[in-house]
Every structure is written in C-alpha cells, then in structure tokens.
C-alpha cells in the first residue's frame, strides 16, 4: 500500500533531446485508481514505464511510498505491470506464468500453489492452469496476465492499455472486472488508455495528457463538466463537445448583460459566466463557446435563445439519436435528441442551448475562463 509522488518528471529522447514527457507533476494517493488518458503518442506509456523502472528518467523524481525509486531496478520497486500484448511467457503453462514471480521470491511450494489457485479462482481461469498461453483466447490471456500481477500482491499496479486487444463486448466486461479487482485488492492502480470511455468509467481521477504535458487532473465528473481547455473538452465525451467561434457583445451598452454573437445568431450569457468574461476583459473580443450535445434541446424545452440549423445527418446510438446540424460554422453542431425523432434532409430545426451549461474558452489558447 503506497501512494506515488512524481516531481517534475521529464523524458527526452535521442540526440536532439526531443521532450516526450514535460514537467509531469502529480501526487497519487494510496488506493487510488488513476487513469492516464490522451491521444496516441502523448507520452502515457513513457510515463508509466518510468514509474515501472523500464525507462530511464531524464529529469525529476519518483517516490513510491516514501522511497525515492529513480535508481531502483523494476524488481525492487514492488510493482506489477500488465501489458497490452499480455506478454505471457510462451514456454510456460498458465500456472507457471502466474507462479513465476513467486518462485523468484523463493516462496514455499504450498504457498505458491495456494496463491496461484486463489488468483485463478478470482479470475475464473482455473480450468486452464495446465494450458500454454497459445491455447487461450485473448480474454483468457489477459486474465492470466492479471493473475500474474495480483499474486505478487504489489504496492502498485501498472496497466498499459490492457484491454485494447479485446473485442468491444469483452472490453466492457473486463473493465468491470478490473474495477472489482481494484475494490477487493485496495491497492494503487495506474491505468493507461487512449479510450476516454475507459477513463471515465474506471477512474477515481483522470490525468489528461497531450504532447507530454498534463492538461488536467481531476475526477471524471469535473473533467467532463469543467474541462481546463478545448483539448480536454473535445477529448473527453462522445460525441465531441460543440465548439462555436463567436464574439462577446453587450446586450444594451452599460447594462452589464452580455451576449454571444456569431454571424447567424445571438445567445444570452448567464450572469455568472458574464462576470468571468468581464473579469478577463473579453467584451467585444473573440471567444470559443463549448456546449455538449446533451445540453442542447429542441425548441420548447428551454426558454429563449433559439438557433436554427439545417439537418444534415444523424447517428442512432440505441436510446439516443445525435443530429448534425449546419449552423453556419465550420463544423456541424451535434444535438442529442430522442431516438424516435425524425426529420428530412436540410429541414430547418430550431434548437435551444442550455446556456447555464455553456463553457467559454479563449479563442487563441483554448484555455477556459475561470476566476
């Protein structure tokens, strides 16, 4: 049981010192389920591998518990890791795969047997203990990899996209099992994924990364409702948040009431958001408005603020349907409606955004305005 402290961690590769992890600073609490999420190549794996000791640290410090582990080899860090391609030892049976770490620790034979059996029972792989990895399916292999990690009873679990080789259905199932595992084991988990749904469903806290830089560290709810910038806003959530370019104007000069203006429509800005925008001196300046598809309704659900958009395409997602409307912006506006909703191509649809949920970002840097 231990927390992890990562202090100003850097990783640079090659002669030209290309920085792939940039000033990574993070306190991971004991027993926390932390998820690193970000697009491909943003440095998630590299960070995880530095924590594991598989990659040298260019600069900065990593503490596991109170111990500085920068110069400790992986085997002395008391961690377990699950890899994307399972990395099972092909020459050993499932039993031997799981027992490998225990044998290296010179545990008595009966203890090894007990631990392996117990882990196999938890993961429901008891019938396969005598098989070789090549005789297992992908999901079974991943369970064995998990088993290999849990028998060691480490201080920290590290997982690098453990589910990305599984099919969609199995992925959902394994997701739940890993969450259960975390609950029963009560150990610190660090989980790497590029799948924001995995991050949202599993994490206690999410670390969103881009180009080696942390964009935001927060609970899934906070990251979703108040993203730090447009990158986080669009990366988390599916379908993506709507980002609309526009300008802040005063309703009646001197009244203090602000409106969001595009070439086609005007939207009122609630008091609180208006205060923040004034604080940042954005009146008569360009900003980006962000609003999620579920915060836009069809006419009649909310009060004023009506946008008219021409219907282009729709996506049916079971209970919901997402309409893509042309509202005169570069990108189509996505609106969530009832699955039974029907309309014709290019039909004009009147929609009402819930402006209390609207987010305002700097038009250039993409940073969200807050006080």
């Amino acid at each position, binding site marked *: 049981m231990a927390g992890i402290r990562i202090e100003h961690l850097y990783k640079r590769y090659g002669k030209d010192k290309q920085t792939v992890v940039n000033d990574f600073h993070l306190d991971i609490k004991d027993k926390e389920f932390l998820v690193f999420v970000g697009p491909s190549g943003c440095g998630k794996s590299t960070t995880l591998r530095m924590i594991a000791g598989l990659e040298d640290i260019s600069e900065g410090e990593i503490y596991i518990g109170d111990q500085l582990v920068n110069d400790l080899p992986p*085997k002395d860090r008391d961690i377990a*890791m699950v*890899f994307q391609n399972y990395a099972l*030892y*092909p*020459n050993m049976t499932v039993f031997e795969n799981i027992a490998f770490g225990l044998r290296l620790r010179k545990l008595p034979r009966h203890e090894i047997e007990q631990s392996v059996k117990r882990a196999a029972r938890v993961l429901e792989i008891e019938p396969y203990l005598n098989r*070789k*990895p090549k005789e297992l399916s992908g999901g079974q292999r991943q369970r064995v990899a998990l088993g290999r990690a849990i028998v060691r009873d480490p201080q920290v679990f590290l997982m690098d996209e453990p589910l990305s080789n599984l099919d969609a259905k199995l992925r959902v199932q394994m997701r739940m099992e890993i969450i259960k595992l975390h609950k029963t084991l009560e150990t610190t988990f660090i989980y790497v994924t590029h799948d924001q749904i995995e991050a949202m469903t599993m994490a206690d806290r999410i670390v969103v990364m881009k180009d080696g830089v942390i964009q935001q560290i927060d609970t899934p709810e906070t990251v979703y409702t108040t993203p730090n910038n447009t990158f986080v806003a669009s990366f988390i959530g599916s379908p993506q948040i709507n980002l609309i370019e526009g300008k802040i104007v005063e309703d009646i000069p001197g009244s203090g009431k602000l409106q969001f203006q595009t070439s086609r429509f005007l939207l009122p800005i609630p008091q609180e958001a208006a205060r923040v925008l004034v604080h940042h001196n954005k009146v008569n300046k360009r900003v980006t408005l962000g609003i999620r598809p579920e915060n836009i309704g069809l006419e009649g659900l909310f009060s004023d603020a009506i946008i008219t958009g021409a219907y282009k395409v729709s996506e049916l997602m079971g209970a919901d349907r997402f309409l893509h409307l042309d509202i005169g912006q570069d990108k189509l506006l996505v609106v969530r409606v009832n699955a039974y909703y029907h309309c014709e191509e290019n039909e004009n649809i009147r929609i009402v955004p819930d402006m209390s949920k609207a987010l305002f970002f700097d038009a250039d840097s993409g940073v969200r305005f807050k006080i």
Partner: protein
Amino acid sequence: MVQRLLGLRWKGSRLQAMDGFQKLLTLLMIVMSVFMLLPIVYIFNHAFKPYHELFVYPPAFFVREPSFQNMNELLSVTSRSTVPMIRYLFNSVFISGLAVVFVTGVSALCAFPISKHKFPGAKLAFSTILLTLMFAPEVIQIPRYLVVSNLGIMNSYFGHLLPMLAMPIGVFLLKQFIDQIPDALLEAARIDGANEFFVFIRIVIPVCMPAIATVAILAFQNSWGNVETSSLFMLDDEMKSFAFFLSTLTNNLAGNVAMQGAAAVASLIMFVPNLIVFIILQGKVIATMAHSGIK
C-alpha cells in the same frame, strides 16, 4: 489397389486442392529432395559394397551383394594402429558434446545483449561479427595457432574447443531470432523479479529453442568433421579426433586400390552421427515463432 498401396490416392486428393503453380512447385521440390537424397543413399550403399563392386565401371549406385567385408577391413586397419580407434571416437564425441553446449551458450550470450540491450557500440560489434563470416578459414589459421600456442593449451581438449567457440553464423542466427522476442516479455520478467541472467535462462533460451537447435546442429557438424584442430594443435596421437584419424586413412589412398573399402565405411561412420543429431533436433527447428504463442 496398387494406388492405395503406394499411398497415391491420398496424395492425389491433396494434389487436387492445389493450383497449377503449387503443383509445379511441389514437383520441383520432390525432384530437388530426391537429388539431395542421392549422396546419402550412395554413402550407405557404398559402405556395404564388396571390393569387386566398389570398382565396377560404370559405377553402380546400389549395392548388389551387401557384405561386411569393408567393416572388417576397417577394424583390422585400426587394430594395427598404436592408438585404439575407440580413443579417437571418445575424443570426437567428447569434443563435439562440449562444442554443442559451449558454442550455443557463447553464441546466445553474445546475441542477447547485442539484440536487447542498447549499449554503445552494439551495432559495431554485430557488424564486426558479420564481417568475420567472410574470412576464409585459411586466413585465420595462423592467428589461431598463435593464440592457441601462446595460451599454452596445445595438445589439450581446450585447444580443440577454443578455436571452434566463436561461431559468427550462430551469433547471427540467434540475434535475428531474439530480435523477434517482444521487449514486453523480458520486461514482464524483470518486473516479476528476474535479474538479467534469469531472464536469459528462463525466457530467452526457451523461447529461442528453434534457433538454439539450429545452432547446435551446425556446431556439431562443425566440430565432428573438424580435422584442423587435430592436425595443427594436437601433438600426441591420442588427443586427435576421429575425423582426423579417418582422414589419415583415406588421404594416402589416391589412386590406391587397397583400403578403399575401409574408406567407404569410414565415410558412413562420419556421416551417421550428423544424421542422428539432425533427426533428434529437427522437430525443434521447425517450431517457429508463429507456433510459440508470442504474437
């Protein structure tokens, strides 16, 4: 009925599933393997030919009246020599055994760091090893002699072994194979608590078994047929190898009728262990990465 006896029916059904190109390829392969088989069949037949058959013209491929005459001749020749044949045999078996173990060991120990540990000069080291593949054996005879004599291991088993120990082709084969092992496999073992030696013994070697088996075959052939170390570095007759002994038997035979029979049996005896080693190890050679469940 005849078809069934020859197993042609089974083959026929397999053939039907092939397209024209595959059929042609299969045919070519069959012709090739028959061609490759000829010398082996010849060696076996030749060894059992009585003298009058050894010298018939045109030479006959198959033996007509098999006899053990040649065997007896070889035995009588060897019983006349001061060192018993069994001693030469022991030397060869002993050296070849050591060679198989140590050549595979050294090659793997060399290939593993070159393949999986990024140290400065790894590429240079590997290129140098590859370069030595191109040296003709004659080129390195004198340097070898100097090394062996300066080490003071002339006339010892170590003098047999050392010159054979560095086998560039073995390093090359193993390096190519180890390259294919995913890094994650070794990293998993390291995290599980294995040190580098353990990773090597418990993961790399078992996973590389096909390549190891190939290198073992090469090492065996290399050492079993080796006469160079015996003629250059061994002073006493009882330290020399079986291959060397047989070559002395057959060397003075050019244009000589006597002892041709013994020579024929000798080549058979030289050949059979190669065949046995190959048959034992070939099952392992054929297993490939695809079958090992890594990917």
